[in-house]
């Protein structure tokens, strides 16, 4: 193997190249338009020193996590029931397909009116962002359970409830997992929007508020934090899926090579 094909060599070369281009951009356009790596680092240090960055990350993360967990917990049984009961599905499907085109951000004002300015409205927004994606994924999952599996369970004496619990749920787990994983991404998008418009804390607030001081370096810090938060939670989720849910056919998307 040639030395350049070693993974750590190629990855570090890539990152060095990215940093160089970034720095070049900063030099050409000036640090106010594109803050370079060094000034971003300084900005980050500044925000870390007075504790705002850690606090903001914690707050945004808390909102996403609570809303995402609650949203998923509501969505999983709802999705299973809609998928399993034909009558409900016939009524629910047009509604689901209508509402899924309305992005969470569009609801911010309404949610503020309905749930108040506090945490509730943000968490409700994340729940909204999570709910429909998870439900629609579960629906696809339930619909694609092979007829033979249900038939064989039925002829082995399983009741409808046992079929739901012992056949449909386990067969749908890969779809549920994909659903909650995608929902995690949309949750981050929703919370940043909400924090930009209606919050005094959080990473979204940091990004939005920095414009007042023209601190583009702080904006860069916010963007990096978002990227890392999403990256780590997704990796954690992927790892969990691979370790715990492998028998249900959950595969890690990130780790898969073709």
């Amino acid at each position, binding site marked *: 193997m040639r030395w350049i094909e070693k993974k750590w060599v190629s990855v570090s070369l890539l990152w060095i190249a990215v940093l160089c281009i970034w720095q070049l951009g900063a030099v050409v356009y000036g640090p106010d338009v594109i803050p370079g790596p060094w000034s971003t680092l300084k900005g980050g240090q500044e925000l870390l020193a007075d504790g705002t960055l850690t606090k903001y990350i914690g707050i945004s993360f808390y909102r996403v996590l609570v809303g995402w967990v609650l949203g998923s917990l509501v969505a999983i049984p709802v999705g299973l029931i809609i998928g399993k009961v034909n009558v409900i599905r016939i009524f629910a499907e047009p509604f689901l397909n209508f509402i899924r085109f309305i992005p969470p951000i569009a609801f911010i004002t309404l949610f503020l009116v309905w749930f108040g300015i506090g945490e509730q409205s943000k968490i409700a927004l994340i729940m909204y962002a999570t709910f429909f994606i998870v439900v629609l994924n579960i629906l696809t999952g339930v619909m694609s359970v092979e007829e*033979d599996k249900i*038939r*064989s369970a*039925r*002829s*082995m*004496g399983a009741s409808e409830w046992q079929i739901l619990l012992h056949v449909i749920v386990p067969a749908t787990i890969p779809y549920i997992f994909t659903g909650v994983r995608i929902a995690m991404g949309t949750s981050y998008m929703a919370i940043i929007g909400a924090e930009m418009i209606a919050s005094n804390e959080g990473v979204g607030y940091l990004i939005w508020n920095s414009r007042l001081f023209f601190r583009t370096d702080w904006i860069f810090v916010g963007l990096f934090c978002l990227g890392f938060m999403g990256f780590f939670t997704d990796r954690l989720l992927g790892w969990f899926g691979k370790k715990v849910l492998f028998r249900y056919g959950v595969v890690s998307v990130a780790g898969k090579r073709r």
Partner: protein
Amino acid sequence: MTLLAKQNAIHIEQLRKSYSEPSVGDVHYIIKDVDLVIKGGEFFILLGPSGCGKSTLLNMIAGFVSKSGGNLRVNDVEVNKPGRDRAVVFQQADSSLFPWLTVRQNVEFGLRMKKTPKEEQRLISDRYIRLVGLTGHEEKFPKELSGGMKQRVQLARVLANDPAILLMDEPFGALDAMTRRTMQKELVNIWRETHKTVIFVTHDIQEALLLGERIGIMSVGPSSNITDIYDNSLSYPRDVASQQFYNLYNTIQGHFEE
């Protein structure tokens, strides 16, 4: 013997399955006016070309497909839904086995649904896993098994529920020729050991002659019917090279050459 033969017998009279074609305003029959009596403990073959409705007939006996007319009684009870007394072995093991369960858990599925005590489940699954020759593979998942082994799991899984009737829908159709031969021999042994009624669907004349006591020939659809029934009293294990086998083969072959 006569008592046993009456038990678990299947009586089919003027059985029909139709579907209406709204565009033509016409009624089409998949099978029409099928009359058939299958004795308890008999190994019966349904032989016919693809699309002749033999799977439909099997699915009707299983209770998966409702009838459009006529009578269908198992053990003197009209069939209207799947039941524990009629086990189905599907053509595709991949779509009917539960991939998230181990071989043992798959075999114990019906018993678990019935809430059989754990120790008893274990004893029964051990017995049938041994019967189909899968001892040592209990803790494997279906995806770790070959096609033939998966069909053995299916067989053990239905036998564990101790059904009176085994309905088999081309179970060896997807196997390679050598594995198929082994499976055919073992199925005959299992049948002779357990005295189940077996209805076996196939389009392979040789398979039909190797396995069955009686062979029902189904005509090409639509409005398919059982046109002829052949007795095959050759002793098991059957010799493909024998003169009687050859003669019977030619007679049946003649049906499909018109």
